[in-house]
C-alpha cells in the first residue's frame, strides 16, 4: 500500500514538474514606443503612427548644443540616415521656446540646410514627447523596431569628447540598425547618452 502511494507520489511530482516547464520558456520584450504627433520645422505634421511597420530612429537635437552641433557638422547622423535609406529618421527638438537655445522654424531650417540635415526635425515645445521617452541629452538616440517597440536607447557612439577619428568610433545606432536588419536585437541595446541636457 505504502509502496504504491510512494510510487504514485513520485510519478505525480515528476509529471507536475514537466507540466510546469513551459513556464520557463517565456520571454520579455522592450517597451512600446510612445506615440506622438508633432509639427516639423518644415510646417508639416508627423505622427509616429504614419511609420507603422518601419524601423524608426529618433534623435533629440539642439543646434545650440555643442554636441548636437558637432555631430551635425561631422554629418554623423545625416550620413547614417543616407546609408540606411529604408529607415525613417526623425530629429526631435524639445527645447523650451523661452530658452535662449530655441530656434524659430526659419532659423532651424537654415541650420539644417547648411549642415545637410535632410530628415524631418520636429518641435516638441512642451517637452511632452521628450519626457515620454525620458530623453535626457542632445543627442539622445532611440531605435524603434518594426514591431513598434524600443530596440535601442542611448548614445550615438562611444566617444563623448569626440577624440577619436570617425571611423574608429563604435556607432551604436549603426550597429543597432544592422542588427534590426538581420532580425536580431541590438547589442548593446542601451547605453548612457551623453551631451548637453535637453533644455526643457
Amino acid at each position, binding site marked *: 500500500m*505504502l509502496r504504491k502511494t510512494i510510487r504514485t507520489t513520485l510519478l505525480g*511530482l515528476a509529471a507536475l514538474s514537466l507540466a510546469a516547464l513551459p513556464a520557463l*520558456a517565456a520571454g*520579455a*520584450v522592450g517597451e512600446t514606443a510612445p506615440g506622438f504627433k508633432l509639427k516639423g520645422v518644415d510646417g508639416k505634421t508627423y505622427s509616429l503612427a504614419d511609420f507603422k511597420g518601419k524601423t524608426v530612429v529618433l534623435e533629440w537635437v539642439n543646434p545650440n548644443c555643442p554636441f548636437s552641433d558637432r555631430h551635425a557638422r561631422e554629418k554623423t547622423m545625416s550620413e547614417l540616415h543616407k546609408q540606411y535609406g529604408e529607415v525613417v529618421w526623425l530629429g526631435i527638438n524639445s527645447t523650451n521656446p523661452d530658452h535662449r537655445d530655441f530656434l524659430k522654424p526659419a532659423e532651424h531650417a537654415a541650420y539644417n540646410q547648411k549642415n545637410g540635415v535632410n530628415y524631418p526635425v520636429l518641435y516638441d515645445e512642451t517637452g511632452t514627447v521628450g519626457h515620454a521617452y525620458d530623453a535626457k541629452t542632445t543627442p539622445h538616440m532611440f531605435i524603434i523596431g518594426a514591431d513598434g517597440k524600443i530596440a535601442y536607447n542611448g548614445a550615438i557612439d562611444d566617444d563623448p*569628447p*569626440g*577624440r577619436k577619428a570617425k571611423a574608429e568610433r563604435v556607432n551604436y545606432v549603426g550597429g543597432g540598425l544592422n542588427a534590426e536588419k538581420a532580425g536580431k536585437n541590438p547589442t548593446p541595446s542601451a547605453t548612457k547618452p551623453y551631451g548637453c541636457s535637453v533644455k*526643457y
Partner: protein
Amino acid sequence: MNALKTTSLAAAALATALFAPAPVRGMESEWSKNPQSQVRLLTPWVVAPRSGELILGLEFRLAPGWHVYWKNSGDAGFPPAVTFQPEAILGKPELLWPQPSRFELPGGLVALGYEDQVVYPVLATIRPGSILPPAPEDGNAAGEPVRITADLDYLVCEVDCIPYRYTLTVDQKVGFPTLTDPETAPLLEQWLARLPKALSDVPGVKVSTLLDMGRTPPDFEVRLVGVEEQPGKTGLFLESHEALDAGRPQVRSFPGGVVFHVPMKPRDASKPLPDKLEIGWTATNLSKEGRSFDLAVRHAVQVAQKETGPVPGKAAEASPRRLARLLLWAFLGGLLLNLTPTVLGLFVGEALALKGTAAGVREGAAAAATGIVGACWAVAGLTIAASREGTPAGWGAQLQEPALGALLAVVSALLALNLWGLVEAPLAPAGSVRTGTGRHLLAGVFTVPLALAWPVPLLQEPVGYAFGRGPATVCALYSVIGFGLALPYLLFILAPRVARGLPEPGPWLPRLREGLGFLAGAGTFWLLYSLSRQVSPEGLAWIELSLLGLALAAWLRAREGAGRTLRLALVLGLAACGAAALWMADLNRLVPRPSVSNPGLPPVLPARPAPAEPNPNQTSGG
C-alpha cells in the same frame, strides 16, 4: 590608502619646512584659461621619489555658475577625460573623485559635479626601474626632469555646455632626497582628505544592499548600520551603470543606521537583469562618533527579480537554448549539492540504511526521492510567499534572513547529533538493521533544508531567471533541482543491486557515522560563519551557546538510565535551545527586517518620488 597618502604628504611637507633652503617655485603647469574655467596640472613634489605612488592634481577654477563633472555626470555631460604621458613611466594614472554636489537642471534633470574649485587627485604609480638612477656625480641633485603631459578633454556647463581640450605639461624632477612643494602639497592634501573612504577604513560600519525589481518603480536600497545621518547633508551618489538609470535618492534614519532608497529604471526592459549586478555608490556626509566622512563602495548587489507572467515576444527567440542550459545547470546544481558536507553525511548514512530496509531498496530510495522532490516544492512555495513579503529571493538568499540561517544551523547540528548517535531522527539509530519507508521519506525531506544552506553558484542564474518569470516557473525549477538532488536515490531505484553491493554492516558502521557527524558539524560552522554577517557578535555568541545547550541536552538524554521525567524535560530543553537560537538570531539582527513585514520601521519608501521642482537658487546647467 588615503590616510597613508595624507600621512606621507604631511611628513614630506614637514621635511620641506625644516630643510628647504629657499622658497622653490611650485611644480605646476601654466593655467589653461577660457571665460568659463581655468585648469592646471600640479604635483606636490619639487623632487619626486624615483618609484612608487605619485599623486598629481588636476585643478579647475570655475566662473560663478559653471560646473565640471563627477565620475557619473548625471543626466547630461561627461566627466573629464584625460590621458597621461609618458605611459612607460606612469602607466595609466587614475582620476580620483572628491565629494560631488548635485545641480538641478530644467526638466527635472540632474547634474553631478563641482563648482567654484576642484582638485581631482590623480593616482599614478611610477614603474620601478622606469626612471634611470642619476649618475654618481649628480650627488644629491635630481636627475633629468620627467616631462609629464596630460591630454585633457572636459565639459564645462552652466545653462550651456562648452567642451574644451588642452594639453597640460609639468616638468617633474625626480631623485633623492625628495622635496615637497610648500604651495601645492597642502592644496592637494586638502583635496585628498575630501576623497571618500573605503569600507575597510571605517570599522564597525556594515552595508547591505538590494536591488528590488519587484517594486514599482524598481528600488535600490542601501542600508548602512553603525552610522548616523547629518540631516539635510547626508546624500547618496550612484556611479553610472550601463543597465540602469537612477532617480533621486531618498534618505531616512533608523535606530543605529541610515537607509537610502533610489528609484531605478532599467534601460532595457526586455532583458532580465542578472542575479548579481555590480553597482558603485558613494554615500556622503555620514557621521560616526561625531566625525563626518564619505563612503565609496563598489560591489555585487543582489537583485530580487520581478515576477512577470509569460509574455511572448522577440526576446523569446533566443530563450530555448538558454532555457536548456539553465535547466541543465539547475539539475547539475542539485546533483552538486549532494557533495556538500551535510547532504553527503546524510546521504551516506541513508544509503547504508537502505540496505537493511524492510520494504526493499527500491521502495526506500523512492521514499527518499519523494521526500526530496516534495520538500523542494514546499520550499518553492515558501520562497514565493516570502519574496512577496519582501524577503530576497534566490538560492542561498535564505541565509540573509538571520532566523532562517539559525534554523538551518539548528537542523545541521541535529544531523550531527543524529550521526553521533545522540538523536534518533532523521536517520535510524546506527544499531538498527531494519528501517521503515516512512523514515526514508523523512530523511529525504530533511535533505532539502540541509541543501539550502549551500549557495552553489551554478544555481544562482536559474533561480534568478525563474523568479523573473513567475511562481509556476519557480516551482518547475525547484523540482528540477530536487530531481538533481535525488539523482543518487533515483539510481538506486534503477539499479538496486548497487545498494545491495554495499558492505555488510559491521562494527565499522558506527565509526563511519560518527565520522560523518563531523561533516555535518562543518555545515553548522559554515552557517554560523554566514550568520556572522547578519547578527551582532553578541547574538552569534548566544546562538552558539544555544547550540551547545542543544548538544548537552541531547547527550544527557541519550545516556542510559535517566528517568522518564528527566528525559521528557531534556526533550523540552532540546526544543527550547533550538528556539532560543532562532530567537537570538532575530533579536540581534544587523539587517533590519523587510519593511513590508515590519510596520515598526519608518516607511522608508514613498510610493513615488515627488517630481523635481527646478530650484531657481541652485545652479542650473548642462
